[in-house]
C-alpha cells in the first residue's frame, strides 16, 4: 500500500459517494421539484456554495466551537487518563468509583446542562464541560481495559524487581495500555466537535451575536437554509478529522517501533 494509493482510495470512494448523492438528489428533484430537493437533500455543489457564501460568519462560529472542542477534548483525555490510572491502581478504588463514573457518563446532557449553566455559567465554560462529559468515558473505558489486560508475566517481572505500584503503572501498564488509550482518544476525538455543538445547543450563549456552530445550526434551521446547515456539518466533520488526524499521528509516533497495529498494516 503505497502513499499514492493511500490518498487515491478514499478519493475514489468519495467520488463514488458523491455520485450516489447526486443521483439521489436528482431523482428526488425530478419527483418533488428542485425547490423541495434543495431543502431536503441539497446537491453537494449547493453545500460548497453555501460554505463559501457564509465563510465569514462560519469562520467565527467555527473558531469558537473549535476552541470549546479542543479544551473539552484535552480535558477529557487528560482526566480520563489520570482517572484510569487511579482506577487501575487498586481494586477497591475501582470498585468504589467505577459505578459513579458510569452514572456521570450516562446522565443525559439535557439534564446536566442546566446544572452546568447554573454552577459554572452560560457559554464557553458550560460548553467545554459538556464536551468533556461526552468524551471522557471512552478514554476511561479503553485505558482501564488496557491497564488491566497487562501481561501477567511482565507483572511478575516487575514484582521481582520490587517495583512500586507507581513504577508498575508508569513503566509497565501505561505503555502496555497505550494502544487502548489511543483508541479511546480517537473516539473522544470524533465526539469532541459534536459534543461542543451539543453544548452550544444546550448551554450556548449568543451574546454579542457570536455563537458557535450549534448557534448557526439553529439559525440556519429556523431560516430553512438547508445547504448552509449541511455546511455546518461539513465544518464539524472537518474539525473531527483534525482531532482524529492528530491522534493518528500520535498513534504512529508512539507505537511505530513496536506495536503490531502500526507495524503490520498502515493505520487508519
Amino acid at each position: 500500500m503505497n502513499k499514492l494509493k493511500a490518498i487515491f482510495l478514499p478519493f475514489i470512494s468519495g467520488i463514488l459517494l458523491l455520485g450516489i448523492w447526486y443521483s439521489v438528489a436528482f431523482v428526488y428533484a425530478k419527483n418533488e421539484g428542485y425547490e423541495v430537493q434543495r431543502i431536503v437533500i441539497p446537491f453537494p455543489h449547493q453545500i460548497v456554495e453555501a460554505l463559501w457564501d457564509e465563510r465569514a460568519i462560519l469562520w467565527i462560529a467555527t473558531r469558537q466551537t473549535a476552541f470549546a472542542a479542543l479544551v473539552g477534548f484535552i480535558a477529557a483525555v487528560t482526566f480520563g487518563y489520570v482517572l484510569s490510572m487511579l482506577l487501575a491502581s487498586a481494586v477497591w478504588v475501582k470498585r468504589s468509583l467505577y459505578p459513579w463514573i458510569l452514572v456521570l457518563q450516562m446522565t443525559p446532557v439535557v439534564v446536566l446542562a442546566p446544572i452546568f449553566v447554573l454552577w459554572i455559567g452560560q457559554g464557553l465554560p458550560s460548553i467545554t464541560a459538556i464536551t468533556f462529559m461526552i468524551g471522557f468515558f471512552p478514554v476511561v473505558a479503553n485505558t482501564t481495559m488496557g491497564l488491566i489486560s497487562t501481561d501477567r508475566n511482565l507483572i511478575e517481572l516487575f514484582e521481582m524487581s520490587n517495583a512500586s505500584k507507581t513504577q508498575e503503572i508508569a513503566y509497565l501498564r501505561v505503555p502496555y495500555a497505550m494502544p487502548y488509550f489511543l483508541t479511546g482518544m480517537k473516539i473522544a476525538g470524533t465526539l469532541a466537535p459534536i459534543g461542543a455543538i451539543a453544548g452550544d445547543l444546550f448551554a450556548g450563549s449568543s451574546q454579542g451575536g457570536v455563537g458557535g456552530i450549534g448557534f448557526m445550526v439553529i439559525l440556519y434551521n429556523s431560516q430553512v437554509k438547508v445547504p448552509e446547515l449541511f455546511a455546518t456539518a461539513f465544518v464539524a466533520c472537518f474539525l473531527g478529522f483534525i482531532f482524529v488526524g492528530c491522534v493518528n499521528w500520535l498513534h504512529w509516533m508512539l507505537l511505530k517501533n513496536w506495536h503490531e497495529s502500526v507495524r503490520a498494516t498502515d493505520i487508519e
Partner: protein
Amino acid sequence: APTEQVSSTNGLVKVTLQTDWYAQAEHGGFYQAVAEGYYEDFGLDVTILPGGPNAMAAQKTATGKVEFAIGRADDVVLQASNGVPILIVGSFMQHDPQAILLHEESSVNNFEDLDGRSVMTTPGAAMIKYLEKRFDITIETMPVDYGMSRFLADKEFIQQCFITSEPYYIRKEGANPKTLLIADSGYDPYRVMYTSKTFAQKNTDVVKAFVEASVKGWKSYIAGPRDKANEVIAKGNPKMTEEFLSYSLNAMIENQLISGYQDEDQTGLIDPDRMQALIDDLFLLGVIEKKVFSRDLAPISFLPEYLQEMIDLD
C-alpha cells in the same frame, strides 16, 4: 443568589434581562428601551442576554443569575405553581404570536380539523391540551426541530409557529402558508416579564422602573423610529435582515399583539381577571395541580400607575 443588594455604577442600577430566544423583533421593545436610553432615564443599566433553545430563564431568574426574564404567561404560571419562586411583574404582549402553521392547500382549515393529526410543537404544551379539550379532539405531538424543511417538503405537515416569523421564510421559499392563531381559539395568554420573589420584595422600585421603562420601550418600538434598536438586534443575530424585522413588526401591529384588541392602547397591562381566567383554564386542564391566584402570581402593584388605573376602570 437572588440579588438582594443591587450593584450600581454612575448611579445606575445594573440589571440583566434574559430573553427566550436570539435577538429578534419580538424583543424589540426591550432593545428600544436600551437604545433610546429609557432604562437610563429610570436609573437602570440593563444588559439583554439573548436566549436560545435552552434559555433556562426561570432557573436563572430564581437563582439570581439574572434579574428579569420574559416568557409566555402560561409557562410562567406553571413554573411558579411548581414552586419556582418567581413573580410576574408586567406584560409586553397582550396576545401571544403562537400559531398553527399550515399550507394553503392543507385539508385543515380550523382547529376542529386538527383531530387525529400530528403537530410539531413543544411536548406537553398547554395550548395543545386546551385545543383538545375545547374542541374535543386528539392531537399527536412531536418535538420541534427548529427547522421548516419538513414542513416545506410535506403539504400536509403541521407545526407551531410565530405568526411574526415562520410565514416569512415559508413565503420566501415559494410556498403559501396559512395560520391559525392560538389566541383565536380562546386560549389567550399574555407574554410577560417576571423576576424572582426575593428581588421583587427587596427592590420594588427597581422592578417598577424596569416595567415602566420596558413598556415605554415597546410603545416607542411600535410607533417608531426604531433604527437604533434594530441595529442592536442585527448585531446580536447575524442572520437578521431589515426586511425580516419589518415583516415581524408588521405582523405584531396587524394582529394587535402588543397593544391588544381594545381600542385603547393596553401595552404592558395585566388584567387580573383575564389572568385568573387563564389560571383557571390551566387548572381545569390539569396542567397545574393546585388552584393559585392571579393576585399572588401576578400582582399589579409593579405596573405603572396609569396602567393600574386602567384596571380600576374595568
